[in-house]
């Protein structure tokens, strides 16, 4: 177990930011912390890092209790903050070197580490640039390089892709997976479910300071009743046919509005074929057909009754 | 009026900061005005008593005794003893202006015509010490007169005559239309230091707000808006004006309330207000100009100091104008503060208010107004140039 958070409570005055939060992260995972803005992701991260005081609970990292002066633990953590945390007065190289130097005292060793980090985020051409001259995406990459140059075993990324162009975003996501392959455990927070779905091996969904669901994305999707959703563009569908469709296996809900038929299933396979066969058998002509797998948004919607994104 | 509103929203956010500035400068202003005039009067050789410690090593000498009793009359003698460190300390703390040591056998030596000397240790160039020096010289030059021409009189008589001659002083009369009431000075002082306070406050206030305004992305957003640059500047200037007028009103209002006793006439108050209002416009322009250079807090501290202290020292806010050298004055005449102080001094010396008397003051106000306009135009031009070149 890399991280073990038990019963964590953090209050800001009246507001309960973390409400008996439990989190377990296994070695080698890419662990996603998904939740809308204000759900307590960053607060949880800051508590785990011992930056914030909390009211109750225990936090263990690498099996040891995490404290502000637990330097042996901190040595193996890399952190990429939500806000870009670099010095405007230092160049790209100097910034990475400075932050790496807080972890690695040996100069020779540091030099190779810094070079590797620069290589890793692809800032080779910008070594001597000051952060102000970098574009938003490049700045984010520098921000990441500063956090990972010392080759930590645990990397925590707090919304690293906010306000980043798609190209840099892909670069960043790929990089995270590469780091994971090289052996690092990753904690990744985001409110972009696509990203989380794309890279995370395990996901916890947070809302109002609590983990409301966790597991692999398949497990999460399996948790909710709604499964596949099929949309069919068709005319002339009568109440009778709709009633029949409702009786097909696994169907949970049927809607028909403005020539658009939506059929929801709670599981089962080959639902599409069954539906199309049904339509053909009744000579109902149809146009565009597409099937949607449930998203994490549906999971969130199902559990909380609200959209993941506002 | 979006820019205008934003200005005040930022102002509202920086309210605690503004309160600190306003508080400190109000405090300074009060201290300036209540403490400064008394010291300033001492600098004008008012025949106030100087403070001295006397060490008489010639305790038996008749003339020395007479001299000490003369000093007792004219000076405030402080008994400190003869310990050197104690004397040094007393002088250091300005408990005394000087130490007067009468050497042994002084009286006898003097009568014998040997030209002995009184030893003085004084705070150099302190008014009290210079005054003491004058009194001592006056005493002994008179005594010498009687020694040489008094027909071989006894030392007691020489002492008596000397004291008698020195007792009488010239009559000084303040003219009917005089403004010699010292409390009246306070209003003059208040308005004089107001100039410093306003420059400092407005540079700090306006640069603080403009720092938020000029943050790169915000500025670019503003520049992208369909608002004309000129209109935007106008709104900013208007907002700064409102801020400045409010600060000015607080400072002036407070001064008038505090020094109500010093108010001689409504016309004088009006002139003081007019003069300071015009100066306020200058400060506003200076603040706006400064905001073009101030991009972070540390620079702010330095720029406001250079502008406020520099202008005020140069143009006679802290050091009275008549004490400034003519070269300095010539240079200072290129600053608006110089004309402000000049006008201020003249206003407080006014005794009637016909056009002849007031015209020069109005002229000085006009010069300040021209400064205000010029500085503002320069600032706007620089701003325009900058926006074009590297927005």
């Amino acid at each position, binding site marked *: 177990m890399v991280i073990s958070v038990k019963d964590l409570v953090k209050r800001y005055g009246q507001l309960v930011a973390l409400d008996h939060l439990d989190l377990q992260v296994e070695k080698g995972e890419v662990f996603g912390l998904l939740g809308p803005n204000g759900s307590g992701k960053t607060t949880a991260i*800051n508590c785990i890092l*011992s930056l914030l*005081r909390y009211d109750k609970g225990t936090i263990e990292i690498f099996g040891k209790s995490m404290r*502000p002066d637990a330097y*042996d633990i*901190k040595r193996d953590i890399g952190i990429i*903050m*939500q806000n870009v945390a670099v010095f405007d*007065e*230092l160049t790209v190289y100097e910034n990475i070197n400075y932050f790496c130097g807080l972890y690695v*005292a040996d100069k020779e060793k540091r030099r190779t580490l810094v070079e590797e980090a620069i290589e890793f985020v692809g800032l080779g051409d910008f070594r001597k640039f000051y952060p102000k001259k970098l574009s938003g995406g490049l700045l984010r990459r520098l921000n990441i390089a500063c956090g990972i140059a010392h080759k930590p075993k645990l990397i925590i990324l707090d919304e690293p892709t906010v306000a980043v162009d798609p190209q840099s975003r892909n670069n960043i996501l790929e990089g995270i997976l590469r780091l994971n392959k090289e052996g690092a455990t990753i904690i990744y927070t985001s409110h972009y479910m696509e990203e989380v779905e794309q890279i995370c091996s395990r996901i916890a969904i947070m809302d109002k300071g609590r983990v409301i669901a966790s597991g692999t994305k398949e497990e999460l999707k399996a948790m909710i009743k709604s499964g596949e959703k099929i949309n069919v563009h068709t005319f002339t569908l009568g109440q009778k046919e709709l009633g029949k469709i409702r009786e097909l296996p696994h169907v949970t809900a049927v809607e028909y509005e403005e020539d658009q038929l939506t059929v929801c299933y709670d599981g089962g396979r080959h639902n599409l074929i069954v539906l199309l066969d049904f339509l053909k058998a009744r000579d109902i002509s149809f146009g565009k057909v597409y099937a949607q797998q449930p998203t994490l948004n549906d999971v969130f919607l199902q559990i909380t009754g609200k959209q993941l994104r506002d | 009026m979006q820019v205008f509103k934003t200005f005040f929203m930022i102002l509202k956010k920086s309210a*605690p*900061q503004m309160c*600190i*500035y306003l508080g400190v400068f109000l405090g*300074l202003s009060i201290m300036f005005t209540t403490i400064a005039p008394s*010291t300033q009067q001492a600098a004008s*050789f*008012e*025949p106030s008593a100087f403070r001295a410690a006397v060490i008489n090593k010639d305790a038996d000498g008749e003339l020395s005794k007479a001299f000490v009793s003369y000093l007792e009359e004219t000076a405030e003698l402080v008994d400190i003893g003869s310990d050197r*460190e104690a004397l040094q300390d007393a002088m*250091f*703390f*300005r*408990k005394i202006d000087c130490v007067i040591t009468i050497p042994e056998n002084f009286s006898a030596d003097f009568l014998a015509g040997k030209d002995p000397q*009184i030893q*003085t240790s*004084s*705070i*150099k*160039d*302190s008014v009290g010490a210079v005054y003491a020096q004058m009194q001592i*010289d*006056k005493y002994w030059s*008179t005594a*010498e*007169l009687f020694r040489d*021409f008094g027909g071989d009189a006894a030392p007691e008589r020489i002492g008596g*005559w000397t004291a008698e*001659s020195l007792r*009488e002083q010239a*009559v*000084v*009369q*303040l*003219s009917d239309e005089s403004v*010699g009431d*010292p409390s009246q000075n306070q209003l003059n002082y208040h308005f004089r230091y107001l100039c410093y306070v306003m420059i400092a406050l407005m540079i700090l206030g306006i640069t603080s707000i403009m720092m938020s305004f000029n943050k790169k992305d915000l500025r670019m957003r503003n520049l992208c808006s369909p608002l004309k640059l000129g209109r935007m500047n106008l709104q900013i200037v208007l907002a700064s004006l409102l801020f400045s007028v409010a600060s000015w009103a607080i400072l002036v209002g407070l001064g008038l309330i505090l020094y109500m006793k010093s108010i001689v006439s409504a016309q004088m108050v009006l002139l003081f207000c007019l003069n300071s209002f015009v100066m306020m416009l200058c400060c506003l322009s200076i603040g706006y100009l400064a905001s073009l250079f101030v991009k972070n807090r*540390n620079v702010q*501290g*330095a*720029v406001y*100091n*250079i502008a406020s*202290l520099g202008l005020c020292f*140069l143009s006679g806010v802290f050091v009275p104008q008549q004490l400034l050298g003519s070269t300095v004055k010539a240079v200072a005449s290129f600053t608006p503060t110089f004309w402000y102080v000049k006008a201020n001094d*003249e206003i407080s010396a006014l*005794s*009637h208010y016909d056009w002849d*008397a007031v015209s020069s003051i109005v002229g000085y106000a006009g010069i300040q107004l021209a400064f205000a306009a010029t500085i503002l135009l320069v600032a706007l031009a620089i701003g325009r140039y900058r926006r074009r070149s590297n927005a």
Partner: protein
Amino acid sequence: MFSHTYINRLKIMVRQKDTMFWSLLFPLLLATLFYFAFSNLTSAENFEIVPVAVVDDAAYREDALLTETVKAVSQESDDQLFTVTYTDEEEAAKLLDEGKVDGYIVMESGQPKLVVKQSGINQTIAKAFLDEYIKTGRSMETIAEQNPAAFAQGLLEKLSERNSYTKEVPLGKDDSDPTVNYFYTLLAMTCLYGGFLGLKCVTDTMPTQSPQAARLNVAPVHKAKAFTYGLLAALTINLVQTLLVLAYVTLVLGVSFGSQIGFVLLAILAGCVTGVSFGAFLGTVIPGKENLKVALLIALSLLFCFLAGMMFIDMKYIIATNLPLLSYLNPATLLTDAFYTLYAFDNHNRFFLNLMLLGGMSVIMCTASYFVMRRQKYASL
């Protein structure tokens, strides 16, 4: 670890070019301005010629001695005291009112009287002149009674003689020129402005203040140590700046700091330590964001320097005599005073008292900020 933090902190501060530029420019520029503004000040007693009016009536012309003396001191020469306008009383009053003259002399029952509109240096000079005249008149009357032959013995020649009866024996080592105090307060201000650097150090170390600091806090470094190294870097820069200002003020402007350069440097070191600690103290102890702290730093350092006599030399003495405790608590006064004692006195008791107080102040401020900084978790970021 030390060199890594120290060097990088130096880089971060030095590369804030506009900050470096302005914080160095302001004391240099002000020192230059002081120099020019005060060049005339010490010789303020070398008064300019005083314009007076004399009511030239029969009573005045009767007094031959006064007429002659006035004529003598208003003749164009190096010793010229007055420029005199002879006129009638009405006109004289008008001249006075218009500010063309500083006062006018009119005879009243056989004695000259001075009429002025306000008190001032020129008016006092005029009065002193009349005092002298009256005294001389009295003395001559007395002598004439006692020794009618005196005039024949050269009384009048004697009168025009000017002797000094005093000898200045300085208590300290140097003659003191009070305007040096302005430069001392300016140097004190430069030291106190090191507070900005101390404050910046807090901003970059305290996670509530900046994301960079948060990053530092998750690294395996002792925060208080990193903070201390950062402050040392700030101190270094503040020292270099202050020394540059000192060099300019002494070598270029020729302001005297006494002859004990070692002690002057010691005082500057103490001043810089206090300045940086002051910034660290404000930064850690005052809650809230940087803006507020900067405002406090600016306002307080100005207040300190004001009380140390930056705008009025006398302020320092007024405080010292009336509120001595305040002098002991004001770092600007202590530093100004330390320079002053080196300049004016030959013993170091007072100097070391000042330095000890500065040191004590720094220790208290640093300890306080250490305890705040040592706190490792925060209620909110």
